[in-house]
């Protein structure tokens, strides 16, 4: 035991961390966690290890562990944009939007070209029912991404969804059209455009777009959501058999968490 402990100390925290990071990338999470613990045993204030520890804990739904790791990392490295971003991101995922604002804003100021901070800040303001601030930040995010030549369908999807919930359908359509332009096989894009066509009463087009969404790949929109859209659209078109088939699939799918 004593020898193992001395060996552990003989390796630097950075080395343990590098090993943990590699194991994390290989999805060897238990081993990665052990390496992180080793890194933190050598240097409890080693920020990269703390942030990775937080990410790992989030992946395993241990938000209590993640919170401690991110908060500590943020305190130890107030000038690290990444540490600030991860803390804000954690609060956002934990639905604590109020707490997410400060670290995300710090991260944005520390690293302006990184669009992620602006994006999550936008979504946090959206979660706090402050759409005007959210819209400004979505616009900023899109501007940064455009300047960097890396436009993101996900950003346009999130922005379009906000506009849709505000009843600003035409602006939402522009965003979703951009999503499909960037990724012609976007499940989110086709689904959201289908939803809007349904609301506008063009049920045939809603069916076309819903069917495209169903065959497209993507993690954001679930099959259940698409079956819900298709069932209602077919029902409006008087196609009872198709409507019933999609209703059955909708009802047998796991409930969506999106509300």
């Amino acid at each position, binding site marked *: 035991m004593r020898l193992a402990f001395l060996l552990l100390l003989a390796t630097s925290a950075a080395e343990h961390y590098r090993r943990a990071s590699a194991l994390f990338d290989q999805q060897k999470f238990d081993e990665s966690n052990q390496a992180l613990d080793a890194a933190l045993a050598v240097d409890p204030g080693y920020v990269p290890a703390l942030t990775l520890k937080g990410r790992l804990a989030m992946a395993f739904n241990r938000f209590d562990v993640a919170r401690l790791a991110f908060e500590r990392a943020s305190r130890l490295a107030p000038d690290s944009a990444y540490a600030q971003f991860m803390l804000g991101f954690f609060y956002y995922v934990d*639905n604590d939007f109020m707490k997410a604002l400060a670290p995300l804003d710090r991260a944005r100021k520390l690293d302006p070209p990184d669009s992620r901070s602006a994006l999550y800040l936008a979504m946090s303001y959206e979660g706090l*029912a402050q759409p005007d601030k959210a819209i400004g930040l979505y616009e900023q995010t899109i501007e940064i991404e455009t300047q960097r030549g890396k436009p993101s369908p996900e950003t346009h999807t999130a922005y379009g969804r906000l506009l849709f919930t505000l009843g600003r359908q035409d602006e939402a359509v522009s965003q979703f059209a951009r999503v499909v332009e960037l990724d012609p096989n976007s499940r989110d894009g086709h689904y959201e455009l289908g939803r809007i066509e349904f609301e506008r009463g063009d049920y045939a087009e809603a069916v076309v777009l819903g069917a495209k969404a169903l065959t497209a790949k993507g993690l954001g929109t679930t099959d259940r959501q698409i079956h819900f*859209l298709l069932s209602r659209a077919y029902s409006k078109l008087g196609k009872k058999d198709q409507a019933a088939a999609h209703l059955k699939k909708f009802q047998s799918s796991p409930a*969506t968490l999106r*509300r």
Partner: protein
Amino acid sequence: MKTVPALLILTVAVALFAHSFIFDPLLSSRTGIDFVHDNALSARRYLPESMGPGVAILDFDNDGHMDLYFTNSGPSDFFKPLRPLRNALYRNNGNGTFTDVTLKAGVIGRDFGIGVSTCDYNRDGWTDLFVTNYGVNVLYRNNRDGTFTDVTKQAGLDAPGLHTVAIWFDYDRNGTDDVFVGHFVKYNKSLERGCQYNGIPHYCYPLSYDPWPSRLYRNNGDGTFTDVSEQSGIGRHMGKVFGAVATDINGDDRLDLFVANDSVPNFLFLNQGRTFTEIGFDAGVAYSADGAARSGMGVDAADYDGDGREDLFVANFNRERFSIYRNRGDLTFSDEAGPTGIGTATQMYSGWGAKFFDFDHDSDLDLIVANGHPDDRIEEISSTLKHREPVLLFENTGGRFVTREVVAKDYPARGLAVGDLDNDGLPDIVIANNGESPVVLRNRGAANYWMGLDLKGPATGARITWSARRNRRSRLKTSGGSYLSAHDPRELIGLGKASKLDWLEVRWPAPLSRTDRFENVAAGRYYSFRPGGKLE
């Protein structure tokens, strides 16, 4: 130099004073309403603790002044009160004060009190009380002498359960009010899930519990009721009912039933005469636009956009946004939460009691919602959410609702009832708070004309139509709505700048199906009348 601070103070003072709220909270020392709800708070956090209480505004002694009734917790399989608990009936003394007459009236309740509704199930012209419980509900028959008799068992309404709302309406149009009794989840102490966060008990999200059917009882007209849940179709649907409202969504003069469920789809029961067809999915009111069942709690129905069709409202859980469903006229609805501004304004809140009403008598219908997060420990795990939440008043500005400040304080609100407690023609608000005293909010006034209508007789389902300055408007007398609560049965009609009605019509529901019409009706007072009678 001395004048500068003085001016500054004066400016600040004027600014503070100028920040006026629409309602004044009345202190219990002034009203005499000393009721405090005991929510039976336990270390384990049993679900029913978070549900109540309800409040009713009623005139139990027919003296023309609105009285108040509050429900309270009581003995159950998970709660043994250390001191006797009881519901409370307060008689309105007509001078701004109330007297507790619960014991004399004999309406202390039994079991674990949740909600309350009012009715006149025996059509004798005196208001009866129905208390929903975790346990066996109570039907109190009004003895017409200031007392009540518990007639639950002989009426056949003594089925046990975890009940929430009771909606009295004449679904079969035979002239007597039947009753829908909403049931929440399948529940007893052994079924409590015992949810924890970081090892600390919190109330479980209702998704954790199994749904259960509600009941419909037909009024036999002889003081008894027959359970028609199965034959009517109502009992075939498993729900988790919090709120319900009887309204007519398709203008066929039959009262339909809209039911808000928590964590399972809402129901819209279309009245087919003697049976109901559940059309919530096709109507677009069962799920969110993404196909998610939300946490429907408080509800209401009214024609908020003046197109002659009954629209629907549902108060949901925080992050879900509340729903305001515009009736498209083809048995479908569109959720207008986005365009109306209701969605963004309600995103942070969990809504319960709710009511469309015209708070300023400008002749369109505004909306009030009482809110409160059900988890009393929410602030331990979130800096974004609060246990106490504001009362939201949405002023109808023609297509959009603008949030107005009701009162400075936030509350852990549940039940909400609207009524004119001082007969000044202005609707006041009573909010029943979970684990606290209720709050009475007195309307500070409006510079518009009004008229009050007290329909004597089978009023639910009546259609009131009027013209003022040649503007024709209409209102359906619905039943239920809000959450666990009952409103003032009188209808207050805002007239804007019109000092009189050109004409007033009331079309009584079947089996009467008659219309009474009156010309040149003066504003500024209450009228009552019976079918075929005169305005008095």
